[in-house]
């Protein structure tokens, strides 16, 4: 939450542009919802939103709830308005986070009017991020590296590379079909672990167990876990708990997929 000291310091040299509280409030609520969706910590959301609000002579308090973001705007005359927006599930996207943070500074430095800022905001949230094919092979390479870090040999690394590529390809397709994320995690973990069982089935290499165990690690929701711990340290307990619960549910889904695969493949042997 913004303190009065921050407000006084940051409001220096800023001219009041006379925009309406409603326009700004709606913009800030949507801005916060997208920033949350991109995987920003509560501290960053709070700072960025306060920065924009202060530029126009308002004070902003942000409350991040599990499914909604609430922005409370107040002016020096004592008028207080509250704006709520449903959070956007955009997936972890630090490029989007970077662009939205830069946007807040452009507004603060007077380089953009609110109208122009809204147009730029629409462009930022509307553009595609990343090349799916590049992400696919880099993720596969990352998981194969993980396999090596856990002691896997070259055969295990090769199998994990292809198991990850297949699983991640399916994840991209299922996400496009707007399938439930928990089902996606279960299915992708099942497919990747089953393919990685090839090491044990065909006797490739000496570390088949490592191949199966590390084949699903690309699905571990690492950023939500770190975000949850970061929010907890910043006393945003509700948001922290909601992020932690989301991450645990996804971990449980992928573990269930892994266990199902192990059971099925053991029965096949």
């Amino acid at each position, binding site marked *: 939450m913004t303190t009065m000291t921050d407000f006084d310091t940051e409001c220096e040299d800023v001219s009041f542009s006379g925009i309406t509280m409603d326009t700004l409030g709606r913009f800030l609520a949507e801005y916060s919802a997208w920033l949350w969706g991109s995987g920003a910590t509560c501290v960053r959301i709070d700072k960025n939103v306060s920065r924009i609000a202060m530029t126009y002579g308002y004070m902003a308090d942000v409350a991040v709830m599990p499914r909604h973001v609430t922005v409370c705007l107040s002016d020096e005359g004592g008028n207080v308005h509250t704006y709520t927006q449903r959070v956007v599930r955009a997936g*972890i996207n630090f490029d989007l986070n970077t662009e939205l943070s830069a946007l807040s500074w452009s507004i603060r430095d007077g380089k953009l009017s609110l109208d122009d800022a809204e147009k730029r905001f629409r462009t930022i949230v509307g553009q595609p991020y990343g090349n799916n094919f590049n992400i696919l092979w880099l993720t596969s390479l990352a998981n194969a*590296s*993980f396999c090596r870090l856990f002691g896997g040999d070259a055969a295990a690394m090769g199998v994990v590379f292809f198991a990850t590529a297949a699983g991640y390809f399916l994840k991209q397709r299922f996400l496009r079909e707007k399938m439930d994320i928990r089902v996606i995690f279960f299915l992708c973990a099942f497919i990747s672990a089953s393919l990685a069982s090839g090491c044990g089935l065909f006797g490739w290499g000496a570390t088949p167990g490592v191949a199966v165990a590390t084949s699903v690690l690309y699905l571990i929701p690492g950023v939500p876990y770190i975000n949850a711990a970061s929010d907890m340290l910043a006393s945003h307990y509700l948001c922290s708990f909601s992020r932690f619960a989301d991450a645990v549910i996804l971990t449980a889904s992928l573990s269930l997929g892994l266990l199902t695969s192990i059971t099925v493949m053991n029965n096949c042997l």
Partner: protein
Amino acid sequence: MTNDSIISWSVFFDDALFSAMAAIGFSSISHTPQRAYILCAVAAAAGHSLRFLLTMPGGAEMNIIAAATIAAFIVGVIAVFVAKVIKVPAEACLFPALLPMIPGLYACRAFEGFVGCLSNLDETLFSHNLYLFVSNGMTCGAIVIGMAIGANIPIFLMKKISFQVTR
């Protein structure tokens, strides 16, 4: 130089190289700006290999939770300075660099223990699975919290850099 030390150093460089490759992959999956990929890889290699040195038998032999916290602190310091150079939020460099240290296997093993508890009513097996669930779950949680504390200290100590880099 003895054979043992040659093996240890080759494992050490292996660890640094593959954690750097993992960080590049996780940068792409988290849509980190492309200009940050290489620097994320350097930060990840530094952090992961430091954790390796701290936990290595015959080295510092430190507990993995303390080692992960110290390594995360170093990654955090690197990330804050790197963020300033390439003008991206510190988290955009920090989180992908930390991901190779996320205890994913502990989380999966904890869940395996949980399922084992539900599927084995025999007291000995149940106790063993409960032990696996609790010990892996606690270790996983403690490592993540330790990493978050270690990584956030530099961000909060250098607030001005961390939150103004995109200006």
